[in-house]
C-alpha cells in the first residue's frame, strides 16, 4: 500500500506538485498498479543480466569536427523569459 504521505514524498523527488486530492487518488490507483507489478517477482531470474536496449547496438564514433547547426537566437527562441541570449531564471543559490 502506497499511502498519501509516500505519494507526496515521491512527487517531491520528481519535483512535481500534486494536490491533496491527487495524492489520495494516486495512492489508491498506484497501490493497485504496483500490486499488479508484484507478479513478476515470481519469475526465476537468477544470474540474468537485465535487458535495456532490446536489439544489439554498436557504438559509433563520429568525427571530432565542430558543426554549426543552430544560431544562438534559434536556441533561445522558446525561452519563457530571456535577457539577450541568456535564460532568465529564479535564484539558484
Amino acid at each position, binding site marked *: 500500500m502506497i499511502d498519501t504521505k509516500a505519494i507526496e514524498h515521491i512527487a517531491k523527488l520528481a519535483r512535481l*506538485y500534486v494536490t491533496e486530492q491527487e495524492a489520495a487518488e494516486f495512492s489508491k490507483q*498506484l497501490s493497485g498498479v504496483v500490486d499488479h507489478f508484484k507478479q513478476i517477482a515470481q519469475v526465476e531470474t537468477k544470474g540474468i543480466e537485465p535487458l535495456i536496449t532490446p536489439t544489439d547496438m554498436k557504438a559509433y564514433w563520429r568525427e571530432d569536427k565542430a558543426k554549426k547547426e543552430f544560431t544562438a537566437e534559434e536556441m533561445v527562441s522558446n525561452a519563457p523569459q530571456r535577457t539577450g541570449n541568456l535564460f532568465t531564471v529564479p535564484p539558484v543559490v
Partner: protein
Amino acid sequence: MDLNTASFKDISQAVKSKKASALEVTQHFLKRAKSLDSKLNSFITFNDKAEDEAKALDARIAKGEDVGVMAGVPFGIKDMFCTRGLKTTAASKILENFVPPYDATVVERLRKAGITVLGKLNQDEFAMGSSNENSHFGPVKNPWNVQYVPGGSSGGSAAAQAARLAAGTVGTDTGGSIRQPASFCGIVGVKPTYGRVSRYGIVAFASSLDQAGPMVSCVEDAATTLEVICGRDERDQTTSDHDVPKFSQNLKEDLKGMRVGLVKEYMTEKGLHADVQKTLDSAIETLKKRGAEIVEVSISLTNQAVPMYYLIAASEASSNLARYDGVKYGYRTNIESLGSMALDDFYCRTRGEGFGKEVKRRIVLGTYCLSSGYYDAFYNKAGQVRRLLRDQYSEAFKKCDVILSPVTTSPAFKIGDRISDPLAMYLNDIFTVSTNLAGLPGMSVPFGMSKEGLPIGVQLTASHFEEQKMLNVGYSLEQASSVKWKVANV
C-alpha cells in the same frame, strides 16, 4: 484520380508526370481536413505553409528535378515529432507553445522524399494512453462512430487517416500506440524493429521502447514509408546499420512456405470479444488458403508483459520527462518576481501545472519504481524478465516466420468508459506490449468489422529486422480482406 483511394505511388506518379499538381493535391486534403476535423478533433495545428511547400515542389518538378518517391503526398504528423517552425506540443500544456528549431529525422527524410506537411496530429499527452482521452487539446473521436475512442496514443493519426483527411500519417509506438489505434480505426499501422527508425527529434517517452512508424491506408504505402524513414542515423546511437530492403517492391500474396505462429497463451485468453475471435479465425482461414502453414508456439512470459511494460515505461518516462522544468522552453509557472520563489517550488509548480493527470501518475509510478529500496525489486527485475521474454520469442521464431494474434481484446470502446480505472486501461495493451519489450516489428492490418460497425484489425509480429515477411503476410491478408481500404464517412 480519386484521392480517397490513391496510394503514394499513384499520387507521386501523377504529380511527377504533371497529371495533377502537388498544389491541388495538398489543397484537396487541406480543405477536407479543415472542413471535417471539427467532428474528430484529430488535428492540433494546421501548417499554414502547406500550400507554399506544394508550390515549391511543383516548381522543382517543372525544372526537371528528382523530387522523391513520395512527391506531393500530403502527410499528417503526430505531435510527438519536432517540425521546424511548426508548433510541437506532445498534446501537453507544458509544450503548448513550443516551436522547434529543427525537424525530427523522420520528418527530414519524409520531406526529402517529397511530402507536404498538412499539420500536427492530436494524441494522448506524451504518448501516455490507449484512447486519446488524455490530450490537453481534448479527446479525438473515432470517425466510424464519434461516441467511441479512436485508440491511442496515436489517435489523431488513426482518425485522420481513416477519414482520409491526409494521404498518409506517422505515429509513435511504445506499447502499442500505432497498432491499437490502427486497429480501432481500420487502417494499416506498422511499428518497425527497435533501431530501424531514428528517434532523433521525437519527444522521448520510454527510450528503450519508442519507435516511429507509418499509419496509412494500405500495406504498400506502409512499405514505401518504411523505405524512406528506416536506416542508420548518426544522431541516434540506437539506430541499426542493417540494410533497408525495398519493402514495397517485394510484396507478394502467395504465402507458400510461410509459417504463421499462433501463441498458445493468447489463444486461451478468455476475454476476447466474439467479433475479434471471428476476425482472427477468418484471418487464419485466409492464410491457410494462401499456402501458409499454421503452427502453435508458446511464449509463457507474455502473461507478465503488461506489468513489465508499465513498470519499465513509467520508469524511463520519469527520467525523460525530468527535462521539462520551465527553464529553457515550455510552460513556466506564473511568478510575480523571480526572486520571490524558491527554485524547488518553481520546478514543482511548473511541472504540477503543466502536466496532465495521467502523465503525473506515470511520473510518480516511475519515480517510485526507480527509488532507493525499490529499484532492484522493480526496474532491475523487470529488465531481467524482459531478457527472458526476448529469448522466448527467439525460440518461437525458430518454429515460425510471423506470429498472428489479435491487436486488442475488443473493438473500440465508448469515450469515458475506461478512463477512471487506469489498470483497466493498461490491460487494453495486453497483446501489443510484448512486441516493444522484445524490440520486434509489429503491424496491424484491418480485417473485420464488429456488428456495431467498428473496425477490427489483426496483428502480425516478426523477428528482428524481418519486416519483409511481416509485410508480405499483411499484404496477402489485405488483398483478401472485405474491409480493404474502407474510408470512414464523417
